[in-house]
């Protein structure tokens, strides 16, 4: 529902913006239209100007030619009504014939707020007399009874505010009601799509405005689930197949290996023959390792998770793994140094001990395989704030930058969906990475300060033991 709230907020903000923008837009339109009428000047001003521009001469009255011109431009005429007599004592040449030339007081009152013979008229005083400017018919509309209750005028601003607020309220209400309806039907769809993206089943009730979309989401979910089932079936079949093959190959390989080892030690054979037997033996051992690795890698890759997780001391486990190797290395070709500090705590991790031991074993074996002339192997366990790490490094041949890059980035052929033709590397490191990953950790490869290859596996500390 988090997304729905976000959506709602957006809609409301959008509505407010619309409410603000509309009046502004209206004002702009109004202004751009009225600006051209405003150019005419006020007719009252015109009357005032005529009143002041009218000069009394010996022969009567005279209007400045400039004013005459602006009157003519507006199509207006003007006249001067004498106070007391009500007689028109002066007027412009173009005074329409139907305009009377004599006015009573009531006529003047009427022309002040209205019209003379439908000509809109605008008065201005000149001394005691009245100048009247008349404009063509239907050029102006005059408000003839302009009077309001004073009280009404006084409450007008608050009243307007209340009305506007009420309007906004009504608009919000309408918006909310319609949007909530929409949101109500959008919400489950959003949830459903979120579930789909996490690979879970989504089922949305087909109700409301968006039932068609709901139906499509449901259908998509069904298709995805069906595909996933198919995929899982295939993956399980593949893992089982690998497990089966590696099982069936063990017994024949036992005999190859066993007899080859016996022949390699046989006193009846020549040195050359014993050497050959030794090669058969060591190669069948490689096959054995490969089978083990292949089986584990396929299990780790497909649906299998470490089953036997428990709180394990990483320090103790690594110590045992190192000692196992030391006890096996009869020739002393691969001395190992334990560089873990004395103050390092037990480093409890929640893990499958057999898998972790396997990972460390793979790394140690890896160092041995790449340094057939022998090398020293260094093992360090460290504890960080929320993680602990094992670093296994050697002072042997090491790796080139390109190889490092490849180890970091190139997908292993087992995981690769393309046909791989390049050189294939072993499963050892891949398994270590997989083991680190199923435990929520990571593996980094790099150069060792000791001169050779270094691998660091970092694992989260078990929560309950700190």
């Amino acid at each position, binding site marked *: 529902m988090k997304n729905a709230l976000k959506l709602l907020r957006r809609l409301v903000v959008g509505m407010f913006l619309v409410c603000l923008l509309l009046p502004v837009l209206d004002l702009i339109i109004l202004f751009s239209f009225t600006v051209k009428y405003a150019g005419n000047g006020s007719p009252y001003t015109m009357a005032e100007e005529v009143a002041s521009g009218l000069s009394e001469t010996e022969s009567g009255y005279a209007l400045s030619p400039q004013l005459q011109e602006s009157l003519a431009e507006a199509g207006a005429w003007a006249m001067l009504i004498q106070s007391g007599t009500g007689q028109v004592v002066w007027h412009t040449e173009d005074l329409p014939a139907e305009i009377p030339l004599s006015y009573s007081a009531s006529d003047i009152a009427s022309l002040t707020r209205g019209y003379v013979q439908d000509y809109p008229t605008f008065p201005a005083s000149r001394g005691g007399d009245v100048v009247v400017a008349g404009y063509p018919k239907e050029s102006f509309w005059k408000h003839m009874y302009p009077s309001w209750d004073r009280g009404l005028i006084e409450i007008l601003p608050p009243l307007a505010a209340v009305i506007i607020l009420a309007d906004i309220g009504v608009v919000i209400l309408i918006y909310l009601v319609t949007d909530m309806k929409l949101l109500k039907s959008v919400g489950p769809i959003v949830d459903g799509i979120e579930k789909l993206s996490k690979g879970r089943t989504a089922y949305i009730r087909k109700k409301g405005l968006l039932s068609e979309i709901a139906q499509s989401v449901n259908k998509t979910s069904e298709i995805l689930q069906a595909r996933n089932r198919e995929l899982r079936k295939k993956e399980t079949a593949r893992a089982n197949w690998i497990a089966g093959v590696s099982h*069936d190959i063990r*017994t024949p*390989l*036992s*005999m*190859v290996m*066993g007899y080859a080892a016996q022949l390699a030690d046989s006193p009846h054979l020549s040195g050359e023959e014993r050497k050959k037997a030794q090669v058969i033996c060591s190669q069948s051992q490689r096959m054995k390792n490969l089978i083990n690795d292949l089986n584990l890698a396929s299990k780790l890759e497909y649906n299998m998770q470490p089953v036997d997780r428990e709180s394990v001391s990483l320090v103790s486990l690594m*110590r045992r793994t190192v000692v196992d190797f030391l006890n096996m290395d009869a020739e002393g070709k691969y001395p190992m140094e334990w560089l873990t500090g004395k103050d390092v705590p037990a480093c409890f991790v929640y893990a499958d001990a057999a898998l972790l031991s396997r990972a460390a074993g793979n790394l140690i074996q890896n160092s041995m395989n790449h340094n057939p002339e022998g090398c020293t192997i260094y093992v360090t366990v460290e504890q960080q704030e929320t993680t602990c790490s094992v670093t296994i490094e050697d002072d042997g041949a090491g790796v080139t930058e390109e190889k490092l890059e490849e180890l970091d980035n190139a997908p292993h052929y087992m995981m690769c969906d393309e046909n791989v033709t390049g050189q294939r590397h072993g499963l050892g490191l891949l398994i270590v990475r997989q083991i680190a990953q199923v435990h929520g950790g990571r593996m980094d490869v790099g150069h060792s300060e000791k001169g050779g290859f270094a691998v660091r596996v970092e694992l989260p500390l078990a929560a309950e033991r700190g």
Partner: protein
Amino acid sequence: MDTEYLKGKRILLVDDEEELLDMVCSILMEEGYRHIQRAGTVREALEAAADLQPELAILDVMLPDGDGFSLFEKLKQMGDYPVLFLTARGEDEDKFKGLGLGADDYMVKPFLPKELTLRVGVILRRSYKNETPLVRLAGSQIDFQRAEVLKEGEHIPLTAKEFEILSALCRNAGKIVTIDSLCEAAWGDNPFGYENSLMAHIRRIREKIEKDPSHPASLVTVKGLGYKLMVEGK
């Protein structure tokens, strides 16, 4: 350590592959074991067990007329002797099942002859250690039956903890035993935090077994990892 007496132990070998039986037989005989009985099925195995009274059984898990796990349980009812599973089933679950039932070891095929003979030797030594004579060290001898050390004609008794630690080291004579395994041997299931006590005990053991305790010749420290007991003739 004298292990010649172990070569006379009666061994029962069960596997459905005739050729594998041949090979394992030849490996064990080459090592010096003299009494080996073979069986290809559960039925044969039970008959042979009743007949032979084996002192060690090496079992395959998949047999034509049953599985090795149930055979194991039947054999255990007939007599108490160590059992080693030797099987192509390499799954961890199988391994745990086998060891969980009480098997002494679990080996996955394929294997090197050396590994088999070493493991068989370890199991036999562990199971029949009561017959073990004195353990000869560079400067002394350990008599586990009496829990004492013989040094320069003197009998020095071992405390319970020292006895446990020394037995653990002696079982793996010539090999490194980790600090953790030693603590576990002496203090049991939750052996964390005993490292300093262990060092104290090791010091006292050295005083008892070494000629020159400050330059140990028999009980050797492997820095950071553990200790190793050097036994004469190993």
